[in-house]
Each structure stands twice: as C-alpha cells, then as structure tokens.
C-alpha cells in the first residue's frame, strides 16, 4: 500500500459505493446509505494478536460508521468500514454489526439463489451428489466446529452450493466495495451431518460403493484415507516421481485436521479411482463431478489460454491434484 492520507483511502472506499454496475444492482442499499448525508467514520483499534503482530496494523484501517448529526452528535449505523492491505492490493469492505438491519436490501438476491439452486439440483448429471460436494469442500466450503460453511461474493457459487448442501442459514454479513461497485458478501452454513448423509448414501449405492469404500460419515471417510495413505503416496510417486514421496508422506499426519483433510480427500479419491478402476466413461463421470466443484470453488477456466487453473492449497495438496490429473492423462504444472 503506498503511503496515502487516510482521507484519500476513505474517499476511495466511498467512491466505490457509487460505481456501476453494483450501484445499480443494489440501488436500494446505496440510496439508504446516501440518505445519511454526513457520515462519520471513527477509527477502531483492533485488538487481535494477529493484528498486533503484523505490519498490517499500520497499513489497515477499520472505522465504525455513524450518522453525523447537526451539532456533532453521532448515531451508530451498525456497520464498519474496513480497509485492508491484501498482497499488493487494498480490499475495501463494509461489515455489518447489525446484520438484520441491512439484510432486507439483499433478500431478492438470496431468493434468486434459492430458485436457481432448485433448477441446478434437477440438472446435475451425476446422481450421487458426494463427488460434487467433495470438490467444493476441497475448495471454498470449509469444515469448522461441526459444520460446513462458506463465504463468497458470487451469487452463482451460493446457488451451486445451495443445490448440494441445502444451506440451513444464509446471510449477508457485509458488502465488498469493488471497482464494479458494491457487491454483497454471502455467508452460509449447515450442519456437517449433511456431508455425513451424502457419504452414507454414496457408500450404499454411489461413487464410494464403486470405489469399495465403506464409510458412514466424514470422520470415517477421513479415517479410510489415512489407513490407505501409503497406496495414495505410491500411486502419486508412480505418476510424478520419487521426489514427491516425502512431501506426501508428511501430509498423512495432518489429516486429522479438517482444514487439511478437506483439501486432500477429493484428489486422493480420484487417484485411488484411477488406480483401481482406470479411465473409462464411468470414472470420468465422477472425475467431472469432483473437478467441477473444485474449479467452481477455487479455480478458473480460460478458453483463450486453453487452460484450467486450480488455486489454493499447499504444495503437497497441489502435487496430489497433479498426480490425480496425471493418472487421467492430463498434464498439470504445479506453481
């Protein structure tokens, strides 16, 4: 972040509130905020250890927002403005303290996502939902404290995942202020039992049954992968060479951590599938379901560059994906 006056950063954040097309899409929200007239932004000292330790503290700002009334009185608006350095750029966002107060402006979006999810659900070509779900879990859908959760500013991601996870709670905790104007940030969660249920069904009559995996829950599926990890490593070594062995072997001890396991299970199962069943129409169908979720949550397809990129994850996870893709005859570069 180049050194700039705080006033300049605040002006840039507020400018983004009025940029199109976001300002048009969320006109109601922008107009409601503009009605405030005089806005007061009070700097907030953040107390987290992370903030205290990092250099970011001096380069990021959080302000509590108030209506500035005649005579200097302040009336709280139930939101904060955060301006944070992320990599080389700056992320501007409004974060709602009083979520319910502002949710009404985005209800239409949420209803659209729910309706779109109904259509998507009917059109999924693979009946077993688990491979799709594992693809999303390997990317943007996290597992934390007994629940599945996701944060995104893309309505289509909310719709796609709602079709699979049937989120029990969806809200808008804030609005990102982007160069395309304001964009709501959606947050959704649901109990982990939804994934357990999909695993049970898959083991009874779907992809897991085809792979010969007996598991009734996420915990049991993770355990199965741990117990069969040497087979995964050997398969990866055969595809990518001996140099990946130590990195992948070290991964085994971290599979009890859901943050790691959720990224590992999908590519590990694809590798096992290729080893056990080879490449055919049936196995490609499941590969397509997994990879569509993984790309949807954390990758992109460039028709012009004729390439697909999967982002996120440590090097060991990327190597695992590279091995799984190599097993299908797809060349992958790990960066």
């Amino acid at each position, binding site marked *: 972040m180049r050194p700039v006056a705080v006033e300049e950063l605040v002006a840039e954040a507020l400018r983004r509130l009025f940029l199109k097309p976001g300002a048009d899409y969320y006109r109601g929200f922008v107009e409601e905020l*503009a009605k405030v007239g005089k806005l007061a932004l009070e700097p907030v000292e953040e107390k987290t250890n992370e903030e205290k330790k990092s250099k970011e503290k001096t380069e990021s700002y959080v302000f509590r927002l108030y209506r500035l009334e005649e005579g200097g*009185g302040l009336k709280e608006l139930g939101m904060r403005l955060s301006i944070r350095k992320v990599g080389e750029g700056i992320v501007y966002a409004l974060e709602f303290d009083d979520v319910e107060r502002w949710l009404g402006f985005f209800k239409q979006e949420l209803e659209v996502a729910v309706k779109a999810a109904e259509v998507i659900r009917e059109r999924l070509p693979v009946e077993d939902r688990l491979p799709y779900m594992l693809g999303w879990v390997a990317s943007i859908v996290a597992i934390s404290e007994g629940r599945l959760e996701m944060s995104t500013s893309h309505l289509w991601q909310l719709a796609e995942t709602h079709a699979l996870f049937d989120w029990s709670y969806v809200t808008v905790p804030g609005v990102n202020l982007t160069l395309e104007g304001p964009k709501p940030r959606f947050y959704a969660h649901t109990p982990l039992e939804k994934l357990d249920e999909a695993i049970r069904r898959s083991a009874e009559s779907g992809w897991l049954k085809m792979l010969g995996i007996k598991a009734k829950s996420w915990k049991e599926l993770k355990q199965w992968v741990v117990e069969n990890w040497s087979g995964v490593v050997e398969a990866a070594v055969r595809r990518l060479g001996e140099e990946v062995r130590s990195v992948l072997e070290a991964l085994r001890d971290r599979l009890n951590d859901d943050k790691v396991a959720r990224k590992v299970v999908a590519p590990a199962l694809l590798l096992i599938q290729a080893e056990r069943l080879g490449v055919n129409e049936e196995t490609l169908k499941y590969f397509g379901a997994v990879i569509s979720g993984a790309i949807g949550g954390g990758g992109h397809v460039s028709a012009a560059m004729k390439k697909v990129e999967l982002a996120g994850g440590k090097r060991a996870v990327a190597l695992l994906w590279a091995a799984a893709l190599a097993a299908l005859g797809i060349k992958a570069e790990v960066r």
Partner: protein
Amino acid sequence: MISAMEVYVNFDLPPEAEAELRRHFSVVRGGDLSNVYRTALRKYAEERVKAVERVEVGEEPFRRVVYAADLGRLTQLAEEEGKAFEKALEILRKRLNEYAVGHGLRDLLDVDEDVARRLAETKAPELSEFKDVSFGVKALAALIAYSKYALGRRGVFGKAAWHWLEVGGSARLLYYAPITAYLKAEGAGW
C-alpha cells in the same frame, strides 16, 4: 481536400499517418476529447478527497477524532463523473459518425460500438483479432478503456490507451493496430 472539418487529437503522428489524416481533415492540436475527459477525472478525484475531512466531535472529556464524509457531495460527484464520461463518449461518437457519413469516410471512421466495447474489454490473447478495426472503433474503445483503467479495471487496451494518452500520443494509439499499441505501451514499462 476537406479543410473545414476538424480532428481533435494530440498530434504526435508518424509522418505517413499525419499525411493521410491531413488529406481529409483540419487538425486541431491539444483539443482532443480524451484530454478533456482526463482533466475532468483529475478534477473529480481532487473533489472527492475534499469531501472527506478529519474533525473533532463531542464535548470534553469525550471529544474524539472522526473522519467526516459528505455523502451528498460524493453522490453528486459520482453522478457528474458518470455524466462527463457519457458526454465525452457521445460527442466522440457523434463527431466520428458525422465525418464518416458526411465525407464518404465510412471505411475509415465507421464506429461499431459493440466492437469498440469488446476491444475495450478484451484480453491479451484476443487483441490481435482487432487488427483491422477502424480509427473510429479504436477511438471509442480507447475512451471506454481509458475510463475503466482510470477506475482501476486494468484491461490490455486500457493499458495501451493509458500509455498513449498520458504520453501525448493519442494519434499513435489510433494509428497502430491495437496489439502494436499495447506491446509498445508494455515495452515502455506501463
């Protein structure tokens, strides 16, 4: 020779391009629309910062420092900036079409807005597909791309437009094929 018609460009032309333009137009130096638009952009950026100020509010001992932002003024500036851009686009489109229709220069200045918008938003690999577009398309695309670039949306033709307009070479931007204009801008370190 049509001497009454004016072309608003900051001229820094390759000789062959200047000769070609002078066959059809009277050249007006330093008065191009992009320059007018750039001046407006700078003005709005300065005005925006003025709309935010550090003030103290409340009574002692509860006095505190806040940043006060005039949202009414910021809304007004956003509207004016949008209008300034639309106006610049409209005038440019009108002038180019007048020349094209009135003086049989359709091939040279025909403005297909759809193509211009696609050029303004294209990615590097597709840039070479626009090698045969007219001056008019390039001019319109440059203004659109410049606006996006100024907002921070960094497209490749925006990069070219930014470079050539900032170094005062808007005519070269129109003369070169888009891919050449972009590569030269890249080479110049923009």
